[in-house]
């Protein structure tokens, strides 16, 4: 077999797709192979999309509804034919476009699974084992042999996910699906995707859920009205996607003298000193959070403080947050600060005045030094011997 350049799993160049609005408009020309002049209105779903998925990586595509995410995924999966541009693929593709799209609600879960496996060309001998795995993973129990139309949407989603990921494929094209089921099932889905990734799978994840992007992808693109408005590391893509408006900092703000990096010692009683400038006579409050952003692994708020009063008169303040026995493992974190006006009686929400947060693109770095911990955090504890028969 010919071995083409195999350092990427999937690549597309200047991909474009437009749909004719009236489907009758050019059938005959199309069928007879005549030059098709565009007549009538077309919907330009995608324009000039270039994307390279390296081997063993999942690239995220994040965008709002209607931005062309699903169309892009189907183009990459060769279900749709691009109007312009080209796609190169190295490997077998498993597309999870529309959950259960190929199913018939009158099939039982088992029949659906068999149909899918046959379609993917799974050899007959291994079908039985894979089926067991699907039945087990989807936790459908006896419902596995009942018709899909009797399922709740959660059960159906579980089945579809279990079926689509039952076999190790080389390239996964995933549309939103990790938002199915309850917390427990979602965790299972993540574990499975991670496992597939470790075994060398590559893929594209298309979603509007930014936390999913930072969990699975190092690289991500922001898609907006059919074109990429940003390509780069996934945290920057998230900042770009969220495009959160930083408050104008008129009534209160963090002065420019605020350090860009804080350094703390793991396990020690620590404090973070934040300077605040209050410019108007307002009741101002401040909260901090420590977030752990590991691109490709996930994002997590580790510590979240409550809002603490800063002052209600204009002036310069310093707020000292103290964290006893800092429980975090050494490493890099993001320190976020939120300055807000206290909610007045009758109001439900505080009004944001200024902030420093990575999601706004202006986060502060927090470096924690010290002896490495075996786990993500440590918890304060006491230990004692007890008589063995008491417990």
């Amino acid at each position: 077999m010919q071995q083409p350049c195999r350092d990427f799993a999937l690549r597309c160049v200047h991909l474009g797709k437009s749909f004719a609005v009236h489907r009758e408009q050019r059938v005959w020309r199309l069928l007879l192979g005549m030059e098709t002049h565009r007549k009538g209105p077309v919907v330009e779903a995608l324009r000039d999309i270039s994307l390279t998925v390296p081997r063993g990586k999942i690239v995220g595509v994040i965008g709002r509804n209607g931005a062309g995410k699903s169309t892009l995924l189907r183009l990459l999966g060769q279900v749709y034919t691009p109007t312009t541009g080209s796609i190169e693929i190295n490997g077998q593709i498993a597309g999870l476009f529309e959950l259960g799209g190929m199913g018939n609600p009158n099939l039982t879960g088992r029949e659906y699974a068999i149909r899918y496996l046959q379609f993917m060309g799974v050899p007959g001998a291994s079908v039985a084992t894979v089926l067991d795995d699907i039945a087990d993973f989807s936790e459908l129990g006896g419902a596995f042999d009942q018709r899909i139309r009797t399922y709740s949407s959660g059960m159906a989603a579980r089945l579809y996910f279990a079926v689509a990921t039952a076999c190790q494929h080389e390239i996964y094209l995933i549309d939103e699906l990790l938002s199915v089921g309850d917390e427990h099932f979602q965790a299972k889905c993540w574990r499975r995707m991670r496992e597939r990734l470790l075994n060398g799978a590559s893929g594209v994840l298309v979603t509007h859920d930014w936390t999913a992007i930072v969990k699975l992808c190092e690289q991500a693109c922001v898609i907006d009205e059919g074109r990429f408005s940003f390509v780069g590391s996934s945290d920057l893509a998230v900042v770009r996607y969220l495009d959160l408006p930083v408050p104008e900092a008129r009534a209160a703000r963090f002065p420019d003298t605020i350090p860009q990096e804080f350094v703390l010692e793991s396990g020690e009683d620590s404090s973070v000193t934040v300077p605040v400038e209050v410019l108007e006579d307002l009741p101002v409050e401040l909260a901090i959070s420590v977030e752990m952003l590991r691109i490709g692994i996930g994002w997590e708020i580790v510590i979240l403080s409550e809002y603490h009063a800063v002052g209600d008169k204009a002036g310069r303040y310093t707020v000292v947050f103290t964290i006893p026995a800092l429980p975090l493992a050494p490493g890099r974190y993001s320190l976020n600060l939120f300055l807000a006006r206290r909610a007045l009686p009758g109001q439900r929400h505080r009004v944001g005045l200024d902030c420093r947060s990575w999601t706004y693109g202006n986060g502060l770095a927090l470096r924690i030094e010290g002896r490495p911990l075996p786990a993500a955090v440590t918890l304060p504890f006491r230990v004692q011997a007890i008589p063995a028969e008491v417990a």
Partner: protein
Amino acid sequence: MSLYVELQQVSKVFPVASSATGELVAAMARDAEHDSVPGGKVAVDRLSLRIAEGERLGIIGRNGAGKSTLLHMIAGIAEPTAGTIRIKGRVTSIMTLGVGLRDDLSGRENIYVDGEIQGRSRAEVDEVIGQVIEFSELGKFIDYPVRTYSTGMKARLAFSMITHIDPEILIIDEALSVGDASFSAKATARILEICARGKIVILVSHGMQSIRDICNRCIYLRDGQVVLDGSPEDVTRAYIDEVRGEDEAALMGRFAAHVGKRSYRAGSEIRRVALLSGNNREASVRVEARERLRIQVTGRAGAWLDDGLCRLRTFRLDELLVFEQDFRLGDFADEAGEIGIEIEFAPLVLGAAIYRLDVLFIDGRGSAGETIADSSTVFEVYTLTPPVGGKPMLYYPVAATAASAA
């Protein structure tokens, strides 16, 4: 003449028949005199309910409690097997979004078709169509066939179509989640507005917050019967409490595969791992956050006692190793070699989630650290007062002092 919805001894039984023919026979043989068809699945069981004008009723319950069936019967989509339903007023129901959309028609044409189904004249639709289109934010796409829409756009169109109804009795099934955050917020606001206009609103939802926001009365259904009827605050709270208890049992069942004790060397075993929350004397798998937690471990390590280690590892549900700590077994053994360790977290600062606790006895000799016995338990940390603004990994106390820097 005030509007009302009244149900008297209403039952709905779905015959469990092995074939469609059986279903047909059962449906034909149905006798209004009988309360139930034997062998059927009872979805709604002799339920009586009266909803008066001005009431906004929330219906909560677990999946399969009969919520949707009840709604379908009130909306007139399904017939009760027994009992009577009397309704005064025009019923508008919003069940599932986008089912009625016709793929080959443009968005605009769909709005007219929907108007026809609602029994409105073209002139009436003409009056509101401008607002509908504006609300849907579809722009030029409104004149393109629905086939060319993305899922989100379809949802937006479908939602916009229902927002310009003027309901007398409004029935809404499940939270209407309409795609991206910005539109979703707009949609929620609109739903609240419509509900305020509706003279009677009946809402089924799993979202306790939306029940509390929208409704002024709430019923809790279980097995097709009303268990509780009262103010949304009281009923939702009772429901949450009850669900929590059931969840505990379900939790252990689900993780049964992970849970267990194993011994790899004769003479060593972990006899018991118990979690005691607060001042409880009984072990429990549900642990309250920010409360004291004691983990008690007993066992034997036989010949490995002197060099052995007890390792505590806590994994979160998503396999994140949250906490790991080693203890020397020898420090916790009595003369007979029986080990008893109590590790106390006061308070426990772990955030609300499901965790797995692995306790391992490890051969401390050599660097490999071979496991000689282990035990796994699953526990859940819960809180009644979750922090505002996010779900942190730790509920860690952070103190603050502010001082004027002037």
